C-alpha cells in the first residue's frame, strides 16, 4: 500500500474541484472571455443528437474524472512535499493540465470527427490547442488543484470526540486449535501497533489501529500471527475509546478480539496505556490520570481474568519526552518542568495500575517496556560530556521511579530545580515492586545518539547495539529482560536486521542475563512513524511482518524460520528465566 487514503474525502474533493472548473468555464464564458466548454465537448463526442442527455453525460464524465484525479492525488502525491496543502494541490494540478493540453483535448476533437479513421498529422492533432485554450485549461486545472489541496487533508485519524467504526464481528475463521499451553516457553512475540496520542493541541486523535485497519481486520491479524508461529502478542486495546468517563467503559472495542486470543492465541501482553489518554482526562500534566487509569486497569483485569501479562504504561520516557519536551503529542509542551511532571504522572499511573491489577490477579506478570536510549559525547568538552551524561541519566527516570531505584545526583538536582522535592520522589518510590516484573527494552536504529559539538543530539545508527545498551539497563535494575520492540524502516534490510537483533539476544542470554522473549514490532506496517505521528499524513512505513494488505513480507518469513529453528531447542521450549519468574 502506498498511502493510507481517505477515499470518501478524496472523492468529495475531486467532485468539488470538478464543479469549480465547470463554474470557472461558465463564468468566463458569460463574461465573454475566451474559454472552453469541456462538458459540451465531452457530450458532443457521443450525444450530439440529444443535447440534454449529452450535457448530463458530459457532466457525469467530468465529475468522474475529477474524482479519479483527486484519488490519484491522495495515493501518489499528497504529503510528498513539505508545503501547505493548497500549494501541494496547485503543483499537482500541473499533471492533469498537461495531459489535458497535450493529449485529451486534441483527442476529444478527433473523437468528434465524422470519419472513423484519420492519418496522424501533428499539425492537425494540435489544431484545437490555441493560446486561449491553453490559458483556460491551465487556470481551470489550477483551480481544481487548489480546491483538492484545500479539501484533502488529514486522511488518517479523527477529530477528538469522534469515534471510529467499531471492530468487525468475529467470523468463523481458520481453526488454529487451542492457545499455546506452554506457560514457560521463550516468548517469540510481535505486536499490533496501537499508539493513540493527540496532535494539533488536542484537536486531532491519531489512532494507529484505525489507520492500519486493525479494527476491520483484527481476526486476519491474529490468524496471520499464528501462521508465522508467534507465541505472544503485544496488544493495546484503545484506552481512549474504552474509557469513556469515570467508571464508564465501552468494552465493544476489545471483547471479541480478546475472546479470540483467549481461545486460539497468541497469548496477549496487554498494553493498557500507549502514548495517549481519553480527551476527558486532558493530558499527562494531569495528576489525576493515575487514579483514573488504575480504575481502568482494575476493571480490565476483572473483565479478563485470564490475562497474565500486562504492560501498564508503554515507553514512559518516550511518552513524556514527545509530549512535554519535544512538543509533538498530547500537551505539546517544550519545557523541562512539564517533562518532569509527565514522567512523574506516568510513573504514578504505572504503579497505581500495577497495584490495581495485582488486587484482581495476584500472579500477573508485568512487562515494563521502555525505549533503550544512549547518548555518546562527540568530544571531550566538559559541557558536551555533561549533556551526554545527563541524557543518559534522564532515560532512566521513569523506570527508576517504578523500580524504586536511587536517582542519580544530576537528575535529582534537576528535579529539585523543577519543583520536585526529595519527599515527592520518595513518595512515588514508596511502594513494593512486584517480583514478577520484566524490563522490556526496545531498540531501533535511531536510539543511539551522538551529542555533537553544538550540544545537539544526532542519530548515530547501530554503533554499540542492543547488547551493550540492554546490558546497561540490566546492570541498573537486575530484573529479567525482554527485547520488546525492533524493526527496520528499509523493508529490504528487515531480514538482516532481524537476525542481527536475534544474535544480540543470544549473546545477552549466554552472558547470563535472564531473557524471556524477543519481539519484532509490529505485525503489520505502521502509519506515519517516519514523522513520529506528528502530522496526519498517512505515510505507510514498511516495517511490519506483513504489509497493510496482510501479505507477508520477507521479514515475516524470516521470523517464521527463526521461530521454527529455535522454538524446540533446549532453553527455548522451556525458558529458565520465565520459569524462574513464575516460581517467584
Amino acid at each position, binding site marked *: *500500500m*502506498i498511502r493510507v*487514503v481517505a*477515499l470518501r474525502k478524496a472523492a468529495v474533493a475531486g467532485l468539488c474541484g470538478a464543479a469549480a472548473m465547470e463554474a470557472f468555464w461558465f463564468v468566463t464564458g458569460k463574461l465573454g472571455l475566451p474559454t472552453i466548454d469541456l462538458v459540451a465537448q465531452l457530450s458532443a*463526442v*457521443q450525444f450530439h443528437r440529444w443535447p440534454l442527455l449529452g450535457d448530463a453525460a458530459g457532466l457525469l464524465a467530468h465529475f468522474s474524472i475529477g474524482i*479519479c484525479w483527486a*484519488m*490519484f492525488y491522495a*495515493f501518489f502525491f499528497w504529503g510528498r512535499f513539505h508545503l501547505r496543502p493548497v500549494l501541494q494541490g496547485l503543483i499537482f494540478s500541473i499533471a492533469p493540465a498537461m*495531459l489535458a493540453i497535450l*493529449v485529451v483535448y486534441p*483527442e476529444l476533437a*478527433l*473523437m*468528434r*470527427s*465524422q*470519419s*472513423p*479513421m*484519420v*492519418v*496522424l*498529422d501533428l499539425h492537425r492533432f494540435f489544431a484545437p490547442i490555441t493560446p486561449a485554450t491553453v490559458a483556460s485549461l491551465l487556470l481551470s486545472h489550477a483551480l481544481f488543484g487548489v480546491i483538492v489541496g484545500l479539501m484533502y487533508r488529514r486522511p488518517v485519524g479523527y477529530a477528538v470526540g469522534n469515534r471510529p467504526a467499531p471492530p468487525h464481528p468475529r467470523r468463523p475463521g481458520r481453526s488454529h486449535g487451542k492457545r499455546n499451553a506452554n506457560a514457560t516457553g521463550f516468548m517469540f512475540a510481535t505486536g499490533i501497533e496501537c499508539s493513540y496520542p493527540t496532535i494539533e493541541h488536542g484537536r486531532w486523535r491519531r489512532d494507529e489501529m484505525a489507520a492500519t485497519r486493525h479494527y476491520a481486520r483484527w481476526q486476519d491479524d491474529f490468524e496471520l500471527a499464528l*501462521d*508465522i508461529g508467534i507465541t505472544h502478542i503485544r496488544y493495546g486495546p484503545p484506552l481512549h475509546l474504552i474509557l469513556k468517563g469515570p467508571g464508564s467503559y465501552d468494552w465493544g472495542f476489545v471483547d471479541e478480539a480478546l475472546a479470540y486470543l483467549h481461545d486460539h492465541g497468541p497469548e496477549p501482553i496487554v498494553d493498557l496505556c500507549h502514548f495517549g489518554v481519553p480527551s476527558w482526562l486532558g493530558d499527562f500534566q494531569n495528576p489525576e490520570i493515575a487514579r483514573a487509569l488504575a480504575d481502568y486497569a482494575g476493571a480490565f483485569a476483572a473483565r479478563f481474568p485470564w490475562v497474565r501479562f500486562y504492560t501498564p504504561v508503554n515507553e514512559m520516557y518516550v511518552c513524556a519526552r514527545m509530549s512535554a519536551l519535544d512538543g509533538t503529542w498530547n500537551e505539546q509542551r517544550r519545557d523541562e518542568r512539564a517533562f518532569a511532571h509527565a514522567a512523574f504522572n506516568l510513573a504514578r499511573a504505572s504503579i497505581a495500575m500495577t497495584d490495581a491489577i495485582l488486587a484482581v490477579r495476584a500472579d500477573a506478570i508485568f512487562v515494563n517496556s521502555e525505549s533503550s536510549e544512549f547518548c555518546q559525547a562527540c568530544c571531550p568538552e566538559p559541557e558536551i560530556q555533561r549533556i551526554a551524561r545527563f541524557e543518559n541519566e534522564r532515560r532512566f527516570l521513569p523506570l527508576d521511579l517504578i523500580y524504586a531505584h536511587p536517582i542519580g545526583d544530576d537528575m535529582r538536582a534537576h528535579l529539585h530545580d523543577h519543583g520536585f522535592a526529595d519527599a515527592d520522589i520518595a513518595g512515588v518510590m514508596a511502594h513494593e515492586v512486584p517480583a514478577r516484573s520484566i524490563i522490556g527494552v526496545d531498540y531501533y536504529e535511531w536510539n543511539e545518539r551522538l551529542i555533537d559539538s553544538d550540544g545537539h543530539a544526532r542519530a548515530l545508527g547501530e554503533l554499540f547495539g542492543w547488547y551493550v545498551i540492554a546490558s546497561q539497563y540490566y546492570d541498573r535494575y537486575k530484573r529479567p529482560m525482554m527485547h520488546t520492540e525492533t524493526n527496520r524502516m*528499509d*523493508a*529490504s*534490510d528487515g*531480514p*538482516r536486521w532481524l*537476525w*542481527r537483533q*536475534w*544474535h544480540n539476544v543470544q549473546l545477552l542470554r549466554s552472558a547470563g542475563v535472564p531473557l524471556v522473549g524477543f519481539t519484532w514490532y509490529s505485525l503489520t*506496517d505502521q502509519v506515519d512513524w517516519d514523522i513520529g505521528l506528528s502530522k496526519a499524513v498517512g505515510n*505507510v512505513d*514498511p516495517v511490519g511482518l506483513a*504489509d*497493510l*494488505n496482510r*501479505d*507477508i*513480507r*520477507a521479514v*515475516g*518469513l*524470516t521470523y*517464521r*524460520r*527463526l521461530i521454527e*529453528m529455535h522454538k524446540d531447542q533446549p532453553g527455548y521450549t522451556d525458558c529458565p528465566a520465565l520459569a524462574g519468574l513464575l516460581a517467584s
Partner: protein
Amino acid sequence: MSGFLAAHGYDPGPTQRPFTAGAIAGLLATPPAILLLHLLRSLAVEARILGLPVILTIVAGCVAMAVAGALYARLLGRAANDVRGGWLFGMAFGFALWAAGAVFVLPLLGNGELPAGPPATGVFLSLILWGGCLGALLPFIQRRTHLKVDEPGVAENLGPTLAARDPAKR
C-alpha cells in the same frame, strides 16, 4: 528502481508471483474491453490500421494485454494488491497505455493512421475499462496464485547468515 521498490516495501517478496497474477488479471480484463471495442466499432478500425483480420487482432490484443497486466503487477509490486486502490491504479495504467499506445504507438504501427470519431472513443473507454478491471481483479488473483508460507524454498535465502550481508546490497 528495484532497490527503491524494495526499500519502500513495494517489493513483492518471495511468496508473490506478480507476473503470473498480472498476466491472468490482464487476460481476464480483456473480454469486457473487447466487447466495448466491438460495440463502438473500434475493433474493425484497429484491425484495419494493423492490417490484420479481426480475430487475429483480438488474439494479439489478448497477448498484449496479458503482457501489460504482468508489467503492471511487477511495476506496482505490493501496491497493486490493494483492494481499495487497485481499480484506480489500474485505470491510471489503462489511461497511460491509451495516452502512450493508442495515441502514439498505434499510428507508428499503422503508417500514421489513428482511430477517430466513435472508434477513438471506444479505444479510450476500452482501455480505461480494461485497466479498472485489471486493478480490481489483481488483488484477488494474487491471493490465489501466491505461494504458501510453509512451501519448501520460500524462506530458502532468509537464514541466519543474512546477518552478515552488506546492508547496501538489496
